[in-house]
């Protein structure tokens, strides 16, 4: 026979003002198997917890009901409390007399009746509770950071400085991401290279950081603390150890006119190249699609000229398998390809360019060495029109959301234009100016007032070429007049969008994406850096458009989450998780497909009855969050949730309905 104690809390006056706590405790004292009941002002306080502990010892209680607040708040408190009196911590049930009762009712008599019902249900449930035990799982203290933009760099540095090893995987030949493309950054106009390059170099020299550039994550399996990650290290064709970064190879490579991805196609690179001079690692790669040796079996110039014999044409892709404890996803963004739409003449007129291309035109180490020159003829443009919201806030062609940074970099670019070409005219078309950050409003004001950029509120309807000029037609909705500008160059602030392979990456990681394919955080307010999958965190613009200050803040946030995880030596797995009754499982996969955490795998077992192999579901204790979705879905009721067994829930329902006959 169970020996249950019921403890009713007043919560000061929070519960007591609407519930007759004395009466509730007294009546609960008469419920089946209840041998003791009490009430107290603050059950969660030290004296309150002592009342519980003393009663456990004195009355030999083996399970406990606490009538107080939400279990979200104090279930762990009371689990610890009864654990301190040598009971299994899971032999306590909470009846939520506050959120579910006193706070939401105004009739004291009825609220008291309801409180008594809630206590009766909890007593019925606790009677069928069974002791549960946490399990310890091992923990590998190595982090994986995917993406080497400013987000990945910051996260890797913070984790490494906390003392943990990091593998930083970057797809392109160099870390740096988008920030490395810029000359100056808003709102302070810091030189991007001056603040980014030192961090890149820190990454390379930090003994805790292993940079795998020109590499990609192929596969992720396992769970928090125990991921196994397969990384494809693409063949660089250059020996990492031998290369000194002297650059002779790429200065002599005869294949010249390959549009450089890093320059957004504005500048060229060779077939053997580093994307930009400050690249980290400063080891070139051979682009095999364009290399003459790989295409025509001719050349081998780089091999002949390399003073360190570092060229290795026969290198092959390597697959590395790493044991990883936590993953930071920092894969960033790409910009929307506007040419598909055709509007505004991007792709048709050479001098209609994107903002990223403009960044390269202003960059001192870019293809024009920082000289603003228009792509068609290299002339310095006198009139430049900047268009905001190209594909952002545009449900018809692009995305409904605001890309958040465009208003600011438009201002930055207009300012840089005026700074570099003093008598140039800068026009900015905008819908409204969104400059909500520290120093942002002031920055836009400076562009307009000190640098004389002309801001026009309205959309551009058409751009066409006439007499060597780009005619920009639009409206100034504030003045209520149509405008026509004869421009030399037009810059499109194209929307930020997720990487093309974001969905694929999400699938590998077992995380989810929203309707646009941005990664989804566990909670938009209270868990903004965590994925729903334990041990996976997000940093930077892979989750949503954001600027560098926000990206860095989030990256440090993600890094600190990793450090907290790694500060323990083992992972404690919660016992209130799902399990499968294999004998009845039909192997239909339904539970596996509904599990939001991909905690269920299908495995082959031998059916004890038929001695034949059969497929059954199996719950991975390290991944399961105990949400119960599988238990609700399984038709044969083979998926079950510890602590919430059907029998326990039914006991509560029966108690509520006062069914005493039983089934």
């Amino acid at each position: 026979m169970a020996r249950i104690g019921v403890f009713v809390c007043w919560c000061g006056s929070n519960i007591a003002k609407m519930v007759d706590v004395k009466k509730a405790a007294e009546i609960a004292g008469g419920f089946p198997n209840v041998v003791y009941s009490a009430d107290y002002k603050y059950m969660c306080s030290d004296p309150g917890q002592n009342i519980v502990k003393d009663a456990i010892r004195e009355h030999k209680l083996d399970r406990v009901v606490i009538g107080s607040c939400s279990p979200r708040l104090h279930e762990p408190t009371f689990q610890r409390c009864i654990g301190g009196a040598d009971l299994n911590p899971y032999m306590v049930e909470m009846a939520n007399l506050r959120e579910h009762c006193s706070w939401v009712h105004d009739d004291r008599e009825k609220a008291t009746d309801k409180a008594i019902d809630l206590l009766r249900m909890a007593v019925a449930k606790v009677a069928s509770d069974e002791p549960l035990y946490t399990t310890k799982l091992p923990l590998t203290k190595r982090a994986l950071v995917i993406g080497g933009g400013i987000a990945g760099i910051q996260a890797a540095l913070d984790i490494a400085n906390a003392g943990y090893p990091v593998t930083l995987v970057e797809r392109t030949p160099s870390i740096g991401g988008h920030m490395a493309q810029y000359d100056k950054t808003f709102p302070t106009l810091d030189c991007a290279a001056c603040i980014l390059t030192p961090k890149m170099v820190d990454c390379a020299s930090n003994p805790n950081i292993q940079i795998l550039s020109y590499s990609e994550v192929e596969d992720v399996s396992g769970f928090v603390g125990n991921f196994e990650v397969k990384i494809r290290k693409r063949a660089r064709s250059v020996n990492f150890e031998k290369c000194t970064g002297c650059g002779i190879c790429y200065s002599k490579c005869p294949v010249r006119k390959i549009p450089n991805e890093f320059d957004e196609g504005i500048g060229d690179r060779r077939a053997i190249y580093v994307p930009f001079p400050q690249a980290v690692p400063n080891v070139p790669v051979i682009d095999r699609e364009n290399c003459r040796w790989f295409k025509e079996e001719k050349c081998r110039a780089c091999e002949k000229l390399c003073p360190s014999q570092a060229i290795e044409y026969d290198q092959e892709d390597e697959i590395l398998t790493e044991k990883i404890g936590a993953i930071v996803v920092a894969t960033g963004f790409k910009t929307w390809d506007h040419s598909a739409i055709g509007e505004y003449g991007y792709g048709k007129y050479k001098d209609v360019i994107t903002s990223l291309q403009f960044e390269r035109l202003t960059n001192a180490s870019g293809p024009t060495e920082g000289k603003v020159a228009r792509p068609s003829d290299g002339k310095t443009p006198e009139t430049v029109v900047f268009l905001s919201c190209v594909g952002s806030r545009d449900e018809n062609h692009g995305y409904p959301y605001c890309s958040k940074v465009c208003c600011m970099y438009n201002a930055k670019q207009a300012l840089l234009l005026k700074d570099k070409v003093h008598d140039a005219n800068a026009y900015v078309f905008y819908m409204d100016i969104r400059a909500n950050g520290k120093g942002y409003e002031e920055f836009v004001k400076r562009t307009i007032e000190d640098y004389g950029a002309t801001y026009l509120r309205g959309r551009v309807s058409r751009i066409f070429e006439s007499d060597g000029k780009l005619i920009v037609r639009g409206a100034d909705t504030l003045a209520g007049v149509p405008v026509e500008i004869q421009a030399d160059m037009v810059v499109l602030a194209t929307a930020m969008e997720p990487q093309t392979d974001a969905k694929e990456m999400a699938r590998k990681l077992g995380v989810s994406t929203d309707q646009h394919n941005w990664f989804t955080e566990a909670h938009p307010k209270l868990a903004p850096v965590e994925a729903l999958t334990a041990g996976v965190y997000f940093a930077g613009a892979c989750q949503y458009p954001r600027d560098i200050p926000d990206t860095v803040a989030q990256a440090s946030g993600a890094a600190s989450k990793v450090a907290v995880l790694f500060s323990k030596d083992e992972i404690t797995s919660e016992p209130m998780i799902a399990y499968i009754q294999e004998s009845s499982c039909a192997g239909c996969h339904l539970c596996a497909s509904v599990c939001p955490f991909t905690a269920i795998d299908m495995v082959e077992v031998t059916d004890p009855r038929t001695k034949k192999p059969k497929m059954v579901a199996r719950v991975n204790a390290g991944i399961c969050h105990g949400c119960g979705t599988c238990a609700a879905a399984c038709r044969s009721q083979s998926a079950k949730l510890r602590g919430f067994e059907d029998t326990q829930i039914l006991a509560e329902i029966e108690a509520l309905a006062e069914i005493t006959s039983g089934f």
Partner: protein
Amino acid sequence: MDIQEIRNKAKRLLESGEVKVVVGYERGSTESKSTPAFIESPDDVDRLIWDATCVNNLAAYAIQEAKNGGVAIIARDCDARSIVMLVQEHQLDKDAVRVIEVPDETQWADDPALPESLEERRAFWAKEFEKCTRCYACRQACPGCFCNTCFIDRIVPRWAAKRAGASDAWMFHVTRAMHQAGRCGDCRECSRVCPVGIPVHLLAREIETFVGELFDYKAGMDMDADPVLGTFTPEDPDPNEHGG
């Protein structure tokens, strides 16, 4: 469809070794009956018949037979949908099953008209369920009921009393119908085998109508599609807003 054509197809499949067994129909104890036939040798294909007496959905046999090697099933459209559903739910290996399609020439009995008003409908089913002896013939015949342990047979917890009785029959039939959501191909085996003539299939059919309206999904049409209740997208409609 010409019976010879079916026999030839069966023969070819057996001769080529593509399948180990063809499940079809043969003459039963009387001229007016057929019974499932399991043909393992090309020489036996002449036992196969195809006429108005061939009414069983043979899909459920596929699960067992496919475990011993390839199986071909003679199937009408509705039966083929069961097979697709079984593949979707990993009960059948796509490569181990062949379908010999036959046109649906079944003389289906007329469905009773369901009353419009919910009150009258409740009364209609209450009357039907009075008759149910809980013999579970419907469940045994349904290709969707492949669970090893049916919820209704569970002892802990027990969802319905062992004895027959209208309220326990409600529990069984309504839950079973819910379990068919997005999976029933409308083969009507459940009603055909019911010894007391309850039109059980109408329950599953009603659920299928909802599934179609809510999710634009029809059961058993695409082997590669995820089962509709196993997927979720934020765009999914909220059944509560559809009077569900």
